[in-house]
């Protein structure tokens, strides 16, 4: 008798999310690495460019978004890797729950510890880059939508490259082109808010991309994982 089939999808979802969070919080250094990376990359730009706050403010949205993109990409690489290496993923796939539930739960947990954490840190970085405080709501909202979409795009990439030994560079090559509209509209929304015009259009577009990705990407990521697991 298959024990897993007695557990409902929602219950399985919460169980996996709890497991993932538990695993992440037992290794706080790994949890902090993407955030520290995010901070370091955003520190590099002022050092490399100039100390003029006006110039920095013009660059800030782009810098913030590129850093978020790279940081998210860095952490998503390990989304399925350790579980695939020690066979946990195969066990999860065999437990009677649909693979999609597992993928959704794992990606959501990954977003909570990487994307959501990044959004919470972003005001600090925003202040350092000279973004006015009034823009923070727009910036954080755009980053929330953006990182959620990114986690999903990353899940597809991670699913496709999980079986490969050197999948890291390939993962960037796969995910970054797909993330281009995010960068344009995400940085665009923050940029508009800084210059005082309405950011609503760009935010709506980001939200549309987010909904679109969150609905379709789980299936794509499941197929990707199935291709590499088989």
């Amino acid at each position, binding site marked *: 008798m298959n024990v897993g089939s007695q557990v409902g999808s929602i219950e399985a979802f919460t169980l996996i999310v709890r497991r993932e969070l538990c695993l992440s919080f037992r290794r706080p250094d790994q949890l902090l690495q993407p955030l520290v990376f995010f901070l370091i990359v955003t520190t590099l730009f002022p050092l490399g460019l100039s100390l003029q706050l006006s110039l920095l403010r013009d660059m800030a949205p782009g810098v913030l978004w590129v850093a978020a993109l790279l940081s998210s990409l860095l952490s998503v690489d390990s989304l399925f890797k350790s579980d695939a290496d020690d066979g946990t993923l195969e066990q999860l796939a065999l437990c009677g729950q649909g693979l999609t539930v597992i993928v959704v739960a794992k990606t959501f947990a990954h977003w909570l510890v990487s994307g959501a954490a990044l959004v919470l840190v972003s005001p600090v970085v925003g202040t350092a880059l000279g973004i006015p405080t009034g823009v923070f709501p727009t910036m954080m909202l755009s980053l929330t939508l953006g990182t959620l979409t990114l986690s999903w795009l990353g899940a597809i990439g991670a699913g496709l490259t999980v079986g490969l030994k050197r999948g890291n560079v*390939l993962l960037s090559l796969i995910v970054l082109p797909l993330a281009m509209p995010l960068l344009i509209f995400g940085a665009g929304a923050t940029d508009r808010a800084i210059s005082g015009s309405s950011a609503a259009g760009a935010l709506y577009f980001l939200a549309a991309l987010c909904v679109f990705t969150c609905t379709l990407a789980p299936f794509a990521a499941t197929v990707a994982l199935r291709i590499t697991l088989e």
Partner: protein
Amino acid sequence: MWTWFYKLASPPYVYGAAAALVPWFLGAAALALGYGLIDGLAIAPPDYQQGDAFRMIYVHVPSALLSLTVYTVMAAASAVALIWRIKVGHAVSAAAAPIGASFTLLALVTGSLWGRPMWGTYWAWDPRLTSELILLFLYVGVMSLRSAFEDPERGDRAAALLATVGVVNVPIVHFSVVWWNSLHQGATIVKLGAPSMAGSMLWPLLSMWLGFMLFFAAVLCIRLQGEVLNRERQTKWVREAIMVRREVKS
């Protein structure tokens, strides 16, 4: 009901059809490209603003259009291969990817050469140009993902999924002209109402576009034969087909 579909997609049939179609496609492409080049480069009047430099359009626009068309063909073949598990779809996808990447590169190079006299710069961070560059990265991603797997079948399916997912980017590239107000000029041919181009300039362009399409079809058929032979190299019909070829040659 679907038996004809599967018969159509069987490797020996595809191999034979591709071989038979190549000369037709090549001949038609030569006619269309010949007319387009002569009319476009020599007969059509120079542009009143751009002079003779506008003639770059006869290579640039068809290759840019083809870069999108080939991606769509590749993604469609990949989707067919994924959904109905038709292996020839993977062969079509693998055969189309390098051709599409070449057209994309050609569009970028001719565009930058055209941009120098017209915009005063080889490269502008115009959304359209950037999107075309991203399209090139998408092609490279699909090609390198396919070759990254040791098991070719797995590589095929992974690349097929990526191509299907990446097709989202194709409309974004196409409509970026409309979405972002940019340096690049808007649509000239495909839009509601009359085209904003004189007929004497338009006809060679359409002919070039048709020629590029036919040329793509011909190259695709040639590459497809190679892909099919390579994938089916363990089968009996391939051995027989090669024997027949050898006999014809000797």
